[in-house]
């Protein structure tokens, strides 16, 4: 069973921060012990329909997201790929009026079960956003430890030091920041900030990492650094990445899912999903071929 729903009371003034921390998957106190190469978890969706009020954004998406692989969601703007991504860790429901139909499971366990605590879901399924969003005035150290700090259970300073170092190493950032851990996270470059956010996300040891266009605000060098990191992280996590960058999907993912919509105002749907190599060399659907070839979109 995923973490049960709790009566956790969140003061109003803390809500924004908690939401942000949830996004980074921030409520565990367990040290990072996940060994490299450990099997991650499988996400399955069955007939997922997503709504914003009366507007249906996504229609009938059924897919299996395999563990220890990078799955890229591609498609033109408005096709619902980000909405779908946000439904995987119950962030979609944070939008007023948003609604989810269908089933999302993590290794067979229903993510939307009424007894499941959404916060626990977001700890297991962390998220990295388009714009790097470290807490700008908080130190680099505290940014990584934010998730641990928000949990009520105390851990020792030594344990926390260990988690911070392992997370920063895991995010390929340790060597660059180890001498200035007390400096503000906002002082890092864009690429470093994004890797800091990834460190923050993996500090609480999620099973899945969702990434919503994680490189769109980065320069090419920082982009390649993050892509390299994604390639390494997949040995420990299940990774889903939304990207508009076809070449990034081709370079960085193992599986690609193409979403499309028939016309503006209609819901997006899954057109085709398969090994990235096949999608970019010999897709089954003409729609996919036209999109990846840049014929439209």
């Amino acid at each position: 069973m995923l973490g049960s729903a709790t009566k956790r009371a969140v003061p109003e003034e803390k809500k924004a921060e908690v939401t942000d921390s949830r996004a980074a998957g921030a409520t565990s106190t367990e040290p990072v012990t996940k060994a490299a190469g450990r099997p991650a978890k499988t996400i399955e969706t069955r007939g997922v329909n997503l709504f914003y009020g009366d507007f249906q954004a996504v229609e009938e998406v059924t897919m299996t997201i395999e563990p220890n692989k990078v799955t890229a969601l591609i498609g033109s703007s408005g096709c619902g790929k980000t909405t779908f991504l946000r439904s995987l860790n119950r962030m979609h429901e944070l939008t007023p009026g948003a609604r989810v139909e269908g089933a999302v499971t993590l290794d067979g366990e229903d993510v939307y079960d009424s007894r499941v605590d959404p916060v626990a879901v977001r700890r297991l399924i962390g998220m990295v956003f388009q714009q790097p969003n470290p807490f700008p005035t908080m130190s680099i150290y505290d940014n990584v430890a934010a998730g641990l700090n928000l949990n009520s259970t105390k851990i020792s300073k030594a344990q926390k030091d260990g988690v911070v170092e392992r997370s920063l190493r895991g995010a390929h950032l340790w060597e660059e920041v180890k001498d200035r851990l007390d400096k503000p996270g906002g002082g890092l470059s864009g690429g470093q900030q994004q890797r800091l956010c990834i460190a923050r996300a993996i500090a609480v040891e999620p099973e899945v990492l969702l990434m919503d266009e994680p490189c769109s605000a980065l320069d090419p060098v920082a982009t390649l650094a993050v892509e390299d990191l994604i390639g390494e992280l997949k040995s420990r996590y299940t990774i889903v990445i939304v990207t508009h960058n076809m070449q990034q999907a081709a370079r960085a993912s193992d599986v690609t899912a193409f979403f499309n919509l028939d016309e503006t105002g209609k819901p997006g749907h899954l057109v085709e999903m398969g090994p990235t190599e096949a999608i970019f060399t010999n897709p089954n659907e003409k729609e996919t071929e036209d999109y990846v070839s840049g014929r439209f979109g």
Partner: protein
Amino acid sequence: MPEVARAEYLEELANLEASALGGLDLVNIALGRTLEAVEHQDIELAQIVVADDDRIDGRYLEVHQALITLLATQSPVATDLRLISSLLHVLKNVERMGDQCVNVCKVIPISGNEPPADEEMVRLILTMGRQTKTLIMQAKRAFEERDVEMAQDLVRQDDVVDDLNRDCFRLALEIGDDIDKREWAMTMLLAARALERTADNAVDIGEQVAFVVTGLFREFEDASHPS
């Protein structure tokens, strides 16, 4: 959504395909002249074919470079990627076929202006050459029309060339004791071998047609594991 994006890129790709396949027309002209030079022992015409091979090499270099540029700048994928990959193969075959014409033309002067030619052997070589021309044009058409069946039929056409090549070999063995005639026959065997290779290049182009259409590459015939 716009119906067609990247119109300029698509036009460029179509033009490059036409240029690459146009290389087969150049080869066919060269092969026609080569056969004429063989038939009439026309050493001057043979020299023209040798000199003119620069045009085929030039076409290879020009289109090859443009395809590399397209790969570098346009990030082609799916059918476009397969097409570009295939065109690079086609170009290589075009260049090789041009070189085989040169190989034939270079052996023509060896036996002088009035060689002790064997009429039957010349007939076999000319028949091989004409059949090879047919293969080249069929390969071009199959590529243009993305016709896998037509491409696969090249194997059958190639078998005719292979049979003629074996006939040439048998005839050379039985050509008699005259040393000049035997020497001439040896040069004609080299010519037959070059034509046989050229026909094989046409089959290779057919295999690329199947790859462009289906996304799967397989040899129509495996020389190391004949069926």
